[in-house]
């Protein structure tokens, strides 16, 4: 198994290199004066030197590969440029925004996985009965409604009508606690940090702010995982190993949880991996609707303000998020799939 994961990990630099080349080539669409902004690290630097000097200094009149080399050099030093829309260095902005999006992504994947397993199992157990039909109807409707309509609907229903579950990432009280110097930011993830700092209220607050946005953007995927889980369960139930396991003396429930469900989960996990880019796209919408300050909102404000360095850095950050979460899904798949596990240990 270690070899399998190692193989995946050594592929990452190659992928990153190709993606960074693609992203940096976007710079070619920009004029040299716009390009300067990609390299400078603070607003002061922009004012202290003339444009010609800056173009000279960053080699913007040089061939593409030299510019790319310079860019990567700056990147490795942690200098991603200055974001005019966020009015801070991009590296700082990303440090604030990435954890928010990761929390959202994680919550969305949890809904996809457990919602898919639970509803899918329910539908399979009650095949062609009332519950099954209800779930099917829900999945069809859920799959057809766009994220921003779901988001708006949830916002109107829970916030406007019932005054529950407000938008934003944290309530006012919790924001004060988090921003206080006593609160140590270990990871930037409020869910983790609040527990490490012994602040269960902040945890609950952060959790309640995650519910609506993660629901809004995982609904479309949930419809698919439920359908996948249902058909995959029914397929596995009709296989020969089920009677074998029953004859061995396992109870129906044991067969279901130990064998069938475990095997049936594999396509759902694969789907979760494929869904990561879709969820990140969705985060643009739901973060805007729910005023949730993550990468999606960052990209939108950057795009509105024509903040090119922020856009380019954000693209790179999103690529990294995708690559790492894909790796996690792959590992999860390996752990669950005995075929790979055994294959590799041999």
């Amino acid at each position: 198994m270690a070899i399998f994961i190692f193989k995946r990990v050594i592929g990452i630099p190659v992928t990153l290199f190709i993606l960074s080349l693609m992203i940096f080539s976007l710079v070619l669409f920009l004029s040299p004066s716009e390009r300067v902004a990609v390299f400078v690290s603070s607003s002061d630097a922009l004012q202290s030197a003339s444009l010609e000097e800056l173009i000279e200094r960053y080699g913007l009149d040089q061939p593409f590969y030299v510019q790319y080399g310079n860019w990567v050099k700056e990147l490795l030093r942690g200098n991603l440029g200055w974001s005019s829309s966020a009015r801070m260095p991009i590296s700082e902005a990303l440090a604030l925004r990435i954890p928010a999006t990761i929390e959202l992504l994680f919550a969305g994947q949890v809904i996809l996985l457990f919602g898919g397993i639970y509803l899918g199992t329910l539908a399979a157990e009650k095949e062609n009965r009332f519950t099954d039909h209800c779930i099917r109807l829900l999945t069809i409707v859920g799959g057809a409604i766009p994220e921003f309509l779901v988001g708006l609907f949830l916002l109107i229903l829970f916030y406007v009508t019932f005054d529950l579950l407000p938008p934003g990432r944290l309530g006012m009280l919790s924001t004060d606690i988090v921003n206080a110097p006593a609160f140590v930011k270990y990871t930037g993830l409020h869910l983790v940090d609040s527990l490490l700092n012994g602040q269960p209220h902040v945890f609950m607050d952060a959790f309640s702010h995650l519910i609506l946005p993660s629901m809004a953007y995982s609904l479309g995927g949930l419809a698919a995982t439920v359908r996948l889980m249902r058909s995959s369960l029914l397929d596995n139930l009709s296989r020969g190993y089920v009677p074998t396991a029953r004859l061995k003396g396992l109870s129906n429930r044991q067969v279901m949880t130990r064998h069938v469900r475990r095997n049936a989960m594999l396509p759902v996990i694969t789907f979760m991996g494929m869904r990561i880019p879709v969820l990140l796209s969705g985060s643009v919408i739901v973060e805007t609707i729910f005023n949730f300050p993550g990468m999606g909102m960052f990209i939108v404000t950057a795009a509105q303000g024509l903040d090119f360095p922020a856009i380019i850095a954000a693209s790179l950050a999103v690529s990294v998020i995708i690559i790492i979460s894909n790796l996690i899904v792959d590992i999860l798949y390996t752990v669950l799939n005995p075929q790979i596990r055994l294959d590799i240990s041999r």
Partner: protein
Amino acid sequence: MKKQAKALVQHPTGIIGIILVLFWVSVAILAPMLAPPQDPDNAYMMVRHGFSSLPNPPNGQSPWGTTSGGYDIFYGIIWGSRTALVLGLVTVLATATIGALAGGVCAYYGGILDGVCMRIVDLFMGIPFLIAVIVMTTVWGKGMDKIILALIVFGWHRYARMMRSEVLVVKEQEFVLAAKNMGASPMGIFFRHVLPNALSPIIILMSINIGRMVLVAASLSFVGIGAEPGFADWGQMLNFSRNWISGIPGAPFYYWYTYAYASVAIFTFVLGWTLLGDALGTMYGKQEAY
């Protein structure tokens, strides 16, 4: 052909899909009659009744009310259907042509070409569509044409993937061997025999994707980076309504008209094409077309 049309109509979701699609197509065609533009040269700009920053409820002048900025909602919905239809058709035709040819040719010739092609497709599969389109439109600048271009650049790979798997099956069929045996050229075989027999799942995907493309464009406008302000576009109308969703204290649905019409329009448009594609899929026996 007649038989297929009949089967489609008898399909319960298919008929709903067809009705919705036909409805929006006729609205788009009849737009100049349903909502006569004030300035025929600039018909896609929404008619404005004043410049009030407050939305106005439905009245004699504007049957469905106005959004903030005085834009006529009825006009916007009617002409927005044209925007949606043109955008959907153009992007889908372009992506399908590019993707089907790329995937088809790669699968047909195989070898290194196929390997490289599939690496590229895999790479594109991992790129978040909406974010990529936002990034491209930011770099290229605003406007419908830029959006359409970005949608095409990041939308072709699905067709390539699907076409590839179809062609891999079709090219092993005996009629392809028979054509080769007659002495047909590889190009001739590809266009006469392989392509026509691999197209049906592509058509299903096209139908579903018309809705999907419109949705992405609407999402862009919704977050305020799509069409230029005032352009008749459903996403933008929803964007205008975002500040009015919470209503006024005590009356949460006070500004219902700002979002209700546009939401229904987008939902039914997308649903129509999706259901149509779904029904086509069941007809061709491809349940998991997408």
